[in-house]
């Protein structure tokens, strides 16, 4: 399953950090952060609860980049 979320982040390399953090989150198959359109597209692994996983992703992102937000 693929879902797209609006995000807020200040700089391009911070966006890259978010992407890395999202990729490392269990349950995430692939993640792409688009800094220009401020969107994160996450592909979840089969059978996971997307809502729970994306919360986890948000937490991990905030850990590497304090001033970021994912609008769930």
């Amino acid at each position, binding site marked *: 399953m693929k879902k797209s979320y609006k995000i807020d982040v200040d700089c391009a*390399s911070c966006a890259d950090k978010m992407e890395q953090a999202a990729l490392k989150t269990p349950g995430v198959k692939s993640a792409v952060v688009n800094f*220009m359109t401020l969107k994160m597209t996450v592909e979840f692994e089969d059978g996971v609860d997307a809502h729970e996983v994306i919360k986890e992703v948000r937490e991990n992102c905030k850990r590497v980049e304090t001033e970021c937000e994912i609008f769930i």
Partner: protein
Amino acid sequence: MNKKQKLTLARIIVAGVLLIIFNFFVDAPKFLKPILFLIPYFVVGYDILLKALKGIKNRQAFDENFLMAVATIGALGLAVWRSGDYVEAIAVMLFYQIGELFQSVAIGKSRKNISALMDIRPDYAMIERDGKLERVDPEEVEIGTVITVTSGEKIPIDGVIVEGHSSLDTGALTGESLPRDVKVGDEVISGCVNLSGVLKIETTREFYDSTASKILDLVENATSRKSKSENFITKFARVYTPAVCYSALALAILPPLFTGNFSQWLYRALTFLVISCPCALVISIPLTFFAGIGGASREGILIKGSNFLESLSKIACVIFDKTGTLTKGVFEVVAVHPDLRDENALLHLAAHVERYSTHPAANALRKAYPNEADDCKIENVEEIPGYGVRAIVNGEEVCVGSSKFMESIGAKWHPCKKSGTIIHIAINKIYAGHVVISDVIKNNSVEAIEKLKSMKIKTVMLTGDSEAVAHEVAEALGIENYYSELLPADKVQKAEELLKNYKVAFVGDGINDAPVLSRADVGIAMGALGSDAAIEAADVVLMDDDPLKISSAIKISRKSMQIVKQNIYFSIGVKLICLALGAVGLANMWLAVFADVGVMVIAVLNAIRVLF
């Protein structure tokens, strides 16, 4: 500017003014100085320091806030300990913030501008309820609803006109400036602007399924498919920052072991940290792609990913499908050669006989003689498959069809030197002449091929048509290589052969050529407005069917890639030079921070240049 940006600006101004006052107008005693100068430092840098602390807590060693904090605190320490130059540390923080502010404003602005280029999304639909027009969310409109579009408004949802006539500006979708006239019964697509009159439209799709929404999705997600250059620069940045930091550490520790002079080397190391922030590098590349894709969509060229923009710039060979791409794909009468009577009379008879036929040739004949439905008497119409049509027109027996048909009735036909499909006509079994119909070359095809040639791009034409037709078209257009009488599978094979030696783009109309579209390095679908299959299969979609757009697309891609390269070389180059100068002590922190901010400003401005 948003609230956050305004606050940053205010902090920068306050800190700057304080810094000037303290430095030039207040002669404080030595022990008071550090405390005095800490005020502007905290004003301009408190958020960086806080973020740095959080970063340490989360173990983010190479967080740029952390690096800036270390660099400036280090410089302040040096000031207290040795030099007494407090201004430098604060100025570095100040300029860093100015740079960040500029970046955030510039990116925000260009994000808005480019999005506006692509913005064809309608905000509302109007529905008549109890004689009053009501604005509703287009997402709530069901299929089959009648919506009203007044002049100057965007059509929100695809549909068919049930009342009114008008002309539509399709510019936002196709880049075409000529308005298109529409009347009752015409299909219209969302995203077009109604220029005059009120239209009532019965919707045929839901909002999310409508052309405007689909195109917008496509363009917005395009920059998510990252190009090689983007991947390179993010990977580079991931290595760059830690590398610079470790060298800073080495610079602070190793040389002083041999030469002493600890504070001098520490200063150089701190200069390194200022240059270590990778943001200037990372931002300008995706911005360039975003601008390139936005600029292309303004001209009716949809590029489905940054990676395709990149491949497009390297294309060395363009393969065209003939029918529907270089030619109109519609048969037209190109010549009438009468043996009996005159041209008009011959067309007149032929059109009458073909009145009820749905064959493409019949359409062409009827189109060439538009007022076919006059008071002539047409009886006993008989269609003979593979041969043609026979009918009695005003008492005369008229046969229209192939040479075989002529032979079977004993009419003495003769061939024609023009290529195309020849339709023979016999009156009362006596040969009366023939009409030549053929596919017509598009107005812009010649210029399109010329432009590609001037860009040193090889052109190849593939067609399922006969050798004679293919030869004539290729000659008229000046295409060097053509292959005729190909089945769809042969087209794939020809494309494969060319793919071995060239970066190949294939241009087709999306009908029957999906396999080649997906096989080529870049598949370009043409005239794809409304054709979902073509939009799906292609990498680049031309919204109208103008072949000139192909060279425009390649031009935009080449310009974008040139700017990407300039930005990569320029920003990495300047950073490396500053590192080198810093290591030998020729560059101070002032230069470092100017280089950092300056490079970013120039790279961002350069990226925006794609649009002009």
